[in-house]
């Protein structure tokens, strides 16, 4: 599965060590990596990188590293750690980057499962973990460390520099030790093994080939027009597939310049100094940045605050339209330009986003307001949907077609299919080879003809965009066949501050009905301002005014659902407000505060029945556990209310 033509030139660039040789030949003086050391950004050009990789590879060969050997790499994003991956690949080995904050046990599993004989650790902290592992996993024979700090008493280990000295001696005797091995590499070889953090069971080691990675790097770069010299700050874990594609594969394939921050604590400063043109941030980071900006603006003087508020309102209206190339009136254009001068420009500079051409976020659901904040500022923020098993890229928002509710369109050569169950499947040249030593899991995930199960439920909308609605195993169907995605509906409800939790029912039923848990603080405050008296949670939850409030919000949700032809049939018809807050202590929520839908359905069976038998109220008695461990019971009548559905805007197609 190669892209492009099969002439000799393409073949010469089918592995990273070959790409490196090519880059060192064609542009030895061009920058490849940067690292801030002793307060100054040090630039390493391709010539330097090639030499460093060659020396290290020779040193590894001298220590007995052979084709097929695995090299564990553990530490922060450092150029030398990235180079070590290429050194291992030069000898036909497979690097295995590991999350630097994993505890010794997790690391031990990876070392043992991967059968690694070699490990490279960034510093003493990581070395100590590896030494502990070595007692249990004796196959780990060689430990190499990079940072000599505090390593004076670890006589039995090798330093990075010592290994390179060994390499230099070996190369003096046999100059083509490394180049001969590089030439043996093929695109179909295993390039890397990345362990995916499974939510259940042990992590699985996804094996990706050079063909997978080189395709992904090219496809991603073509999609958004990345070019040589684009700058990137690599601050996300090296063991994560995203960093491996952006900071490693695309660095070699496209020629991106990879900048390594001084330390995890200095990322914000480094971001500002580098001013990357290509940026990735998980939603959590984007949220934190907005919170910081908001807090600092609240502390600012009146004039600054007013200016910020005024221009941000302009930006929210005009910014996304300008980015998408939609028509904007001259007055708005002028206002936006003015805002750019006094607010957005300086703010983007502070955030280190002045030069960003393409920014991605991915992972969990991103609130549209967060997404739009950056787009309003003029940062081209997009969603990306990907997986380790896909070498990242499945879908991306194309320029000019950024909709917060979707995850974009398939990247070229990616085929999408929606299974009968609603699960999203994809097939692409980036699809992983296998899970290492786990054929069972491989067969479960990947079909014989190359389709991969994502485990996510979703659909393609009329614009050809993919929408992810829920985990596939949670998605059900109403009796009339309409797709029912409980988490999708619950999340829409929880977006309202008055609603703390929601539990949606509908699988195998005629319509969707929900339990609502009010937020005591938000609703309590709302009630106080309206002189609505209440003595307890139970009493507040039962007030008709509160029911009116929640009904209004559910109607809003229904309107949103009606706007979406596939979801229109899954509007909420009946609801009730629970007289008790759902608690992890009562087993109603998991410890990470996710609702346990099945358990709640059993426990509150009389209420669920009332939602579907048309009765106006129901009696319920549930046992509760108090914080001091004593048991008690809450008993009472709960009203059930009907909500009128909206008519669908379009027929489902």
């Amino acid at each position, binding site marked *: 599965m190669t892209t492009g033509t099969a002439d000799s030139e393409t073949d010469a660039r089918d592995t990273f060590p070959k790409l490196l040789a090519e880059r060192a030949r064609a542009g030895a003086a061009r920058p490849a990596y940067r690292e801030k*050391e*002793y*307060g*100054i950004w040090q630039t390493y050009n391709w010539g330097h990188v090639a030499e460093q990789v060659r020396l290290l590879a020779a040193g590894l060969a001298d220590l007995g590293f052979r084709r097929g050997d695995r090299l564990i790499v553990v530490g922060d994003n450092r150029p030398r750690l990235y180079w070590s991956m290429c050194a291992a690949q030069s000898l036909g080995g497979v690097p295995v980057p590991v999350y630097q904050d994993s505890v010794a046990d997790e690391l031990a599993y990876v070392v043992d499962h991967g059968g690694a004989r070699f490990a490279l650790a960034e510093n003493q902290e990581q070395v100590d973990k590896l030494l502990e592992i070595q007692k249990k996993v004796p196959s780990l024979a060689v430990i190499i460390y990079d940072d000599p*700090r*505090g390593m*004076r*008493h670890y006589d039995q280990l090798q330093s990075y520099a010592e290994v390179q000295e060994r390499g230099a001696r070996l190369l003096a005797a046999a100059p083509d030790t490394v180049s001969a091995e590089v030439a043996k590499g093929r695109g179909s070889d295993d390039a890397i093994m990345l362990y995916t953090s499974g939510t259940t069971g042990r992590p699985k080691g996804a094996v990706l080939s050079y063909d997978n990675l080189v395709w992904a790097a090219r496809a991603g770069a073509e999609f958004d027009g990345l070019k040589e010299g684009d700058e990137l700050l690599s601050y996300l874990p090296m063991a994560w597939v995203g960093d491996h594609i952006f900071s490693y594969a695309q660095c070699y394939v496209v020629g991106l310049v990879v900048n390594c921050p*001084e*330390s995890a*604590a*200095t990322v914000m*400063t480094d971001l500002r100094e580098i001013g990357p043109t290509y940026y990735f941030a998980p939603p959590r980071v984007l949220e934190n940045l907005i919170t910081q900006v908001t807090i600092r603006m609240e502390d600012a003087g009146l004039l600054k605050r007013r200016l910020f508020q005024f221009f941000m309102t302009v930006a929210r209206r005009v910014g996304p339209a300008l980015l998408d190339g939609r028509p904007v009136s001259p007055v708005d254009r002028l206002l936006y330009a003015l805002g750019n001068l006094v607010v957005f420009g300086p703010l983007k500079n502070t955030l280190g986003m002045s030069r960003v051409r393409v920014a991605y976020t991915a992972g969990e659901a991103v609130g549209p307001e967060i997404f739009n904040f950056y787009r309003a500022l003029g940062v081209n923020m997009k969603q990306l949907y990907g997986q380790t098993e896909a070498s990242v890229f499945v879908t991306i928002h194309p320029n000019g077609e950024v909709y917060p509710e979707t995850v974009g369109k398939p990247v070229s050569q990616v085929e999408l299919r929606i299974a009968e169950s609603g699960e999203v499947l994809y097939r692409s040249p980036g699809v992983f080879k296998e899970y290492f030593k786990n054929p069972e899991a491989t067969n479960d995930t990947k079909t014989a003809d190359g389709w991969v199960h994502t485990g996510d439920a979703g659909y393609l909308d009329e614009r050809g965009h993919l929408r992810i609605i829920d985990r596939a195993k949670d998605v059900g169907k109403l009796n009339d066949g309409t797709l029912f995605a409980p988490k999708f509906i619950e999340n829409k409800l929880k977006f309202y501050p008055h609603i703390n939790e929601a539990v949606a029912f509908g699988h195998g039923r005629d319509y969707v009905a929900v339990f609502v848990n009010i937020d005591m603080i938000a609703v309590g405050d709302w009630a106080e301002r309206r002189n609505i008296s209440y003595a307890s949670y139970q009493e507040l939850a039962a007030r008709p005014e509160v029911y009116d409030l929640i009904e209004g919000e559910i109607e809003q949700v229904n309107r949103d659902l009606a706007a979406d032809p596939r979801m229109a049939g899954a509007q909420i018809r009946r609801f009730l407000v629970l007289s008790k807050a759902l608690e992890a202590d009562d087993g109603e929520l998991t410890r990470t505060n996710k609702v346990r839908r099945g358990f709640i359905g059993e426990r509150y069976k009389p209420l669920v029945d009332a939602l579907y038998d048309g009765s106006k109220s129901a009696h319920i008695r549930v046992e509760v556990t108090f914080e001091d461990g004593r048991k008690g019971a809450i008993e009472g009548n709960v009203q059930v209310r009907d909500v009128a559905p909206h008519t669908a805007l379009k027929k489902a197609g």
Partner: protein
Amino acid sequence: MVARVRSFPDVLLSVENISLSFGGVKALTDISFDIAKGEIRAIIGPNGAGKSSMLNCINGFYHPQQGAITYKGVRRSQMKPHEAAEQGIARTFQNIALFRGMSTLDNIMTGRNLRMKTGLFWQALHIGPAQREEIENRKAVERIIDFLEIQHIRKAPVGQLPYGLQKRVELGRALAAEPELLLLDEPMAGMNIEEKQDMCRFILDVNDEFGTTICLIEHDMGVVMDISDRVVVLDYGKKIGDGVPDEVRSNEAVVAAYLGVSH
């Protein structure tokens, strides 16, 4: 951790029969001990035992009425603080003594002052030799910043930093002078467990990486016993114990001083 069984043949500093009084108050009475080259030496004792006075005598801030201090083979009855600094003795203080309005970087740069040869005039103009010298010194300071892992506060005004970090900056400034003997006056006072652990690691690393001899005063007995090679115990201005941590721990006079008996 590796058990610390180390031997130190050379004496760097020895204190002989020091007595110090302020009017009628006897702060130190007839104290003698030595500090070997390369070791971590602790001075412990209850409040008011004379620990800080002892440190002040060593770096020449107090002048004892009796006794002599031999440092690097030169015996003298008193020394001025700036002489001590020139001789390679640096210290930190119990109450942080940093320039609060200046950045971490600038504070540590002040520690390089002794190493600067160019005069005020050239430094003010910031050209020629002064500029070269500044670059040299900045390099040394950046190494210290890297060593103490305080890159993220390089440009932050020291006054805004949390206490534990200020202590670290103060250690950085003392290190900037590239001392042979580093005196630390309660380096861990007022810190939480995590900050103490960090500071312990830095003290051990300084000793290990730079071979700096360290003399520290500390209240926290656990810390002292873990990181010191030898310990001197003072109580009411008198020396009541001296030896490796295990000896000191089993010394009855020391136990009594710490548990408190009537005098």
